[in-house]
């Protein structure tokens, strides 16, 4: 019996051995192919603990109004930079220092919609100094300093409805552009019937000059254009560096049910503007000064308090015959994106209702202008002959091509919304060479430095609109996904699929070594010029001026000074000016006061921030540090006594036995 069993076992083993050998000989390592693929992808995005990613990715927040920062290729989430919305994590838009940044000619706006981050450029390549981003709803552009990853400046655009074609910079950061998506009457607050659209409404293209040293914005001039929807823009590069391009739709001039009424024309336009020529015309007095009302918010020096600089004028240039600075290129059909290849020669439009991707040639455009190959004019703007400027039409691009970026190796990559895919095509043959699915419904795509003169073109990120079943379900509204692709080879390869924050429209990625070495670790106390900063510990104090009380408070591990305060009265407006005296990287302190209706605040090392507090009830108010700062963080607390409005409790403060 035993022997028989043993024989059977041997037989089985022999059989298994032969099968294994045969399987190996005929197929190689079993199931190894798919395993290798997954592993290969995993290794390409693996960044070991403690190691850093090669790229910073800056993803717009879309309807969150913010900008999120990611490490690529690992897709490590690094931080949210608050820009156009209040942020309960950092106190941005809650502290007295940052509230002015969100002021507009319409008042304080706590929440906007951010779309297109664009990194400042030098010689057509991202230089990592600043990043600009647009607010679409109440039209603005913000500048974020990439030394501190903080919003430092916000400029409102006058006479603009929906600043969507923004905030793209020219190739040496001479200008950042903006445009009206929704044409509106140009005169301020003009009250007219909506059906006076064609007569009274106008588009405005904004040219905001940038200071080469500080990156600060200044509204230089606007160009008044026909009442179309100006959708997206891009600056040229190389030979086309003096030009910017905007797509238009709704050349039908519809003002209702645009999805039908603005989709009738077979072609709309790409507007080509020679910004250098336009600026010269303005310098020579061709512009007209018009009254306007808009806010410019920024920090002055190291004061650390944003100020509101309210403007009342803007220079407007209305195209006239023979000025030779603006042209329309007919482009099929309701084009969305307009993207310029690294050589500056190809102008690629994403005709979202078109069956092809139209590609204009910059040099042909210049020839057509010189030879006056015009189809006609609209409001003194020459319309170029389509056949004169077009150099290629990419066939079979899928349904709904939107945006294109480039790898610098002769290929373009276009996101295609309706058929939810990315197509790779040749800038030589204008033929599709590869396509890959997007999950699901892709909007923008982004290649590492993919809009630069010298793209890195290692990775591509697809920014998609719906997650559906891609991750564990999180309710009827889920976060928007992004996919990371390896584009270093002939075929695009999906590496990673990850949820993002808000709804990223456009994103940009830059090599980390262009940014990381310049990032500040602290705000140096010696440079803190905040008018309510504590420069010396001995200066901590409380000052009362009628019912306004200013508390000059400091924080250091692990106490506030002062931490016992009496003599506050109901009806007082109390400003807690908290200076964080720490000078060590990443050591932040926060303050929260029971019942404070405004906010908490969080203060970076060496900074001063202010919490406004209006106590409405008598009693004892505990306050504490909200950031786990040290081993004795739980001890970092204090009390404020609030007495009746008519009380005589003297104003006193102390810390410890002092």
């Amino acid at each position: 019996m035993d022997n028989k069993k043993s024989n059977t076992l041997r037989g089985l083993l022999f059989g298994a051995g032969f099968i294994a050998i045969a399987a190996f000989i005929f197929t190689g390592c079993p199931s190894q192919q798919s395993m290798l693929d997954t592993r290969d992808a995993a290794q390409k995005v693996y960044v070991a603990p403690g190691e850093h990613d090669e790229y910073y990715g800056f993803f717009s927040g879309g309807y969150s109004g913010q900008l999120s920062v990611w490490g690529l290729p690992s897709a490590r989430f690094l931080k949210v930079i608050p820009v156009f919305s209040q942020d309960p994590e950092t106190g941005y838009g809650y502290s007295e220092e940052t509230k002015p940044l969100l002021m507009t000619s319409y008042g304080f706006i706590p929440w906007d919609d951010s779309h297109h981050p664009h990194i400042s450029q030098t010689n057509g390549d991202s230089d990592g100094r600043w990043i600009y981003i647009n607010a679409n709803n109440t039209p603005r552009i913000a500048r974020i300093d990439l030394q501190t990853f903080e919003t430092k400046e916000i400029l409102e655009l006058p006479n603009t409805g929906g600043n969507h074609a923004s905030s793209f910079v020219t190739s040496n950061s001479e200008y950042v552009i903006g445009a009206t998506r929704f044409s509106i009457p140009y005169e301020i607050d003009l009250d007219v019937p909506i059906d006076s659209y064609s007569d009274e409404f106008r588009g405005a293209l904004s040219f905001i000059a940038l200071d080469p040293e500080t990156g600060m914005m200044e509204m230089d001039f606007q160009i008044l254009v026909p009442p179309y929807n100006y959708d997206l823009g891009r600056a040229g590069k190389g030979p086309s560096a003096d030009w910017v391009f905007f797509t238009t739709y709704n050349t039908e001039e519809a003002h209702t049910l645009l999805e039908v009424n603005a989709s009738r024309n077979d072609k709309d336009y790409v507007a080509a503007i020679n910004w250098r020529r336009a600026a010269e015309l303005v310098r020579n007095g061709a512009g007209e000064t018009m009254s306007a009302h808009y806010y410019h918010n920024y920090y002055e020096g190291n004061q650390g308090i944003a100020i509101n600089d309210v403007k009342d004028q803007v220079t407007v240039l209305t195209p006239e015959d023979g000025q030779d600075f603006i042209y329309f290129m007919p482009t099929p059909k309701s084009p969305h994106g307009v993207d310029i290849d690294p050589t500056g020669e190809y102008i690629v439009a994403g005709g979202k209702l078109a069956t092809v991707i139209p590609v204009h040639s910059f040099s042909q455009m210049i020839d057509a202008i010189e030879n006056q190959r015009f189809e006609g004019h609209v409001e003194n703007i020459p319309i170029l002959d389509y056949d004169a400027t077009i150099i290629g039409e990419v066939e079979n691009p899928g349904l709904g091509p939107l945006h294109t970026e480039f790898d610098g190796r002769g290929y373009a990559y276009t996101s295609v919304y309706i058929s939810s895919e990315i197509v790779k095509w040749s800038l030589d043959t204008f033929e599709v060479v590869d396509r890959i699915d997007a999950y699901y419904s892709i909007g923008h795509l982004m290649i590492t430095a993919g809009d630069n003169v010298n793209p890195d073109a290692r990775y591509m990120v697809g920014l998609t609109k719906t997650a559906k079943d891609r991750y564990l379900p999180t309710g009827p509204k889920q976060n928007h996904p992004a996919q990371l692709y390896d584009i270093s080879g002939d075929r695009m390869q999906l590496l990673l699929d990850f949820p993002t924050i808000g709804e990223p429209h456009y994103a940009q990625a830059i090599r980390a070594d262009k940014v990381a070495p310049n990032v500040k670790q602290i705000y140096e106390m010696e440079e803190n010029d905040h008018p309510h900063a504590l420069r010396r510990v001995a200066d901590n104090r409380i000052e009362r001026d009628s019912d306004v009380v200013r508390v000059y408070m400091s924080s250091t591990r692990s106490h506030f000074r002062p931490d016992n305060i009496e003599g506050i009265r109901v009806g007082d407006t109390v400003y807690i000016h908290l200076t964080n005296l720490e000078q060590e990287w990443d050591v932040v302190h926060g303050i929260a006061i029971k019942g404070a209706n405004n906010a908490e605040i969080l203060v970076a090392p060496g900074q001063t921030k202010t919490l406004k507090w209006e106590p409405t009830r008598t009693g004892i108010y505990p306050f504490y540090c909200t950031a786990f700062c040290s081993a004795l963080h739980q001890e970092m607390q204090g009390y404020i006594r609030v007495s009746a409005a008519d009380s005589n409790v003297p104003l006193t403060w102390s810390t410890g036995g002092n």
Partner: protein
Amino acid sequence: MNTLKSLLITLSLLLLMPIFYACGGDESSERQRSEPQAEETALSEFELEHGIGPVTERIEISDDLDLAKVEKGRNIYEMKCEMCHNYQGRMVGPELGNIMDRRSPEFVMNFILNPSGMVRDHPVGQELLREYMTVMPFQNVQKDEARAIVEYLRYYYEENY
């Protein structure tokens, strides 16, 4: 016969082993672990008396006070030290009014410039941490500024003791 079979089985298994091993091989399993560094190196006589940090030799201290340095040191002291130290009596950290009587200038400078290293690696620092239970933060003080703080504390001591 049985022996032969066993031999064949064993041989065939042996032959297969490298095949399976090759298929299952994983480069990442070969990752290297760095050896824990021996941290307990004996402190030199200088370090024992004058602390561990960027100041590694005696500095020249003149008997006369340099009043410009005193003023510079006072400003830094009031900005970056005073919130945790009294001149007399302990607060978050030890009193400093008589520190120049208790410690060498180099020791004070090293403590300012390398506080985390001092409480980790120096017996006096370790003892202070046990007593005060708070790690002194580095306050972005440069070497010449630490030297100025020493001058101010010398001045304070001469004036008040």
